[in-house]
């Protein structure tokens, strides 16, 4: 992190805006150096600055899970994370899951199981499911329900979301999934 400038004087010059900070992030495998004000959330950085609009802004208060991304492989709410706090981290968004045209098993499972209607919560649901599988704590469908509870679906596609996560977990345990 480096302070790039002293910011611009505001009004009569009685105070100045804090400096923008230069941070490094690896986003979906690509190294980025970004200058960002300290109050910019990771979510706003992704959507407004980097055109990665797959990650959705639902409630912007950590209650709906639509903004879920993986930071160093761990699922978090990007709306409650300041970008500057994650200097040096590796960020994976919904755009970074597939290899070219080949979907990750959990993405294919959402299609196979019809696990969405409007689709707005889906990127967050899928990133959350990737995090859930990496955590390895869900053993039963009740556990999946509990551990997906940070992702709200207003269309109510929950039964199919649980089915999709079960399908991907099964493929994973059978070793069919490479990732």
């Amino acid at each position, binding site marked *: 992190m480096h302070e790039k400038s002293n910011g611009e004087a505001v009004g009569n010059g009685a105070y100045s*805006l804090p400096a923008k900070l230069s941070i490094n992030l690896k986003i979906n495998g690509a190294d980025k150096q970004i200058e960002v004000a300290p109050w910019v959330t990771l979510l706003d950085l992704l959507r407004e600055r980097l055109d990665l609009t797959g990650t959705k802004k639902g409630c912007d208060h950590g209650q709906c899970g639509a903004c879920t991304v993986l930071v160093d492989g761990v699922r978090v*709410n990007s709306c409650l994370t300041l970008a500057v*706090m994650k200097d040096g981290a590796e960020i994976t968004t919904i755009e970074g899951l597939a290899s070219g045209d080949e979907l990750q098993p959990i993405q294919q499972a959402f299609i196979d199981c019809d696990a969405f209607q409007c689709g707005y919560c889906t990127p967050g649901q899928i990133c959350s499911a990737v995090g859930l599988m990496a955590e390895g*704590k869900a053993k039963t469908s009740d556990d999946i*329900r*509990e551990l997906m509870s940070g992702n709200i679906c207003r269309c109510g596609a929950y039964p199919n979301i649980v089915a999709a996560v079960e399908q991907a977990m099964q493929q994973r345990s059978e070793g069919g999934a490479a990732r």
Partner: protein
Amino acid sequence: MNNFSYARATDVANAVSEISADNAAKFIAGGTNLIDLMKENVARPSRLVDINRLPLNKIEENDEGGLRLGALCTNAETAYHAEVEKRYPLLSKAILAGASPQLRNMATNGGNLLQRTRCYYFYDVATPCNKREPGTGCSAIEGFNRMHAIFGTSEHCIAVHPSDMCIALAALEAIVNVTGETGEQTIDFEDFHRLPGNTPNIDTNLHGDEIITSIDLPAKGFAQNHAYLKLRDRTSYAFALVSVAVGLEMDGDSIIEARLALGGVAHRPWRNLEAEKLLNGKTATKENFQTVAEAIFKDAKGFEHNSFKIELGKRAVVRALRQAVEMKRNNDSQFHRTSTEPV
């Protein structure tokens, strides 16, 4: 969100000097509550001191035969830590009963202790609130107060502390280690959170120059007989209306020592030490459980929309005690389930 400047603390001493230099500065760790409060304009720090890179992220043995939980370990790391699961399952279950997996991956142990109430009037800057703006009045006392406190309220504030983790820490009699300008201090968990009194704007006895560095768990973990029962409007991802943390030390059917802490009912984790002692040396029977429940709730005072918590709370105490004795339903899963059995 208002503009603010940002600094990264390089060590604990630097964090203390940064926070002491500016009384409108705040520490940021997980950010799950603070950033939300900043978006709502409830918190308006001039400067954020990012403590995430400080070496306070270990869980290790302490000198008392217990565990020391680093202030910067996340709630998820703590709940799923093998030694915490084995020796302090009450703490694991309480943590996993709170928030969502994403939030638990971000929120830290120190931050959990310092989170603010979720009273809707505290969050709504268009309404009076003595906690947010001292002297403006309390909108909850005669307002919609279904989630509010029934113990230890004052004429200035009836907010509740929202934590699940802290209810277990109260029952476990944890110790909070802090560092300030004058050096290191320890604060008994019982003395950490305050009642609202005349200063509801002050939640804890942590001083402005102090940083939480770790939380010590004493050796006694009540792994054999414990329960965390959380009653809420949905079965997951909701704050408690009433929660009960129970730890029992037992000899056959008789109780040697009982610990009981309640959440969702007061401005701090609520314990009634006199009432708890009623169980010591007693047999684990429903009648004895009802006696202690009556004793705890004799001080309760309901408001227009939350008087239901008194009867609900008594039944929750009895059921949690029974679960701690039986240790059956509790052991099925570490994730909290509210069974369909009537309370």
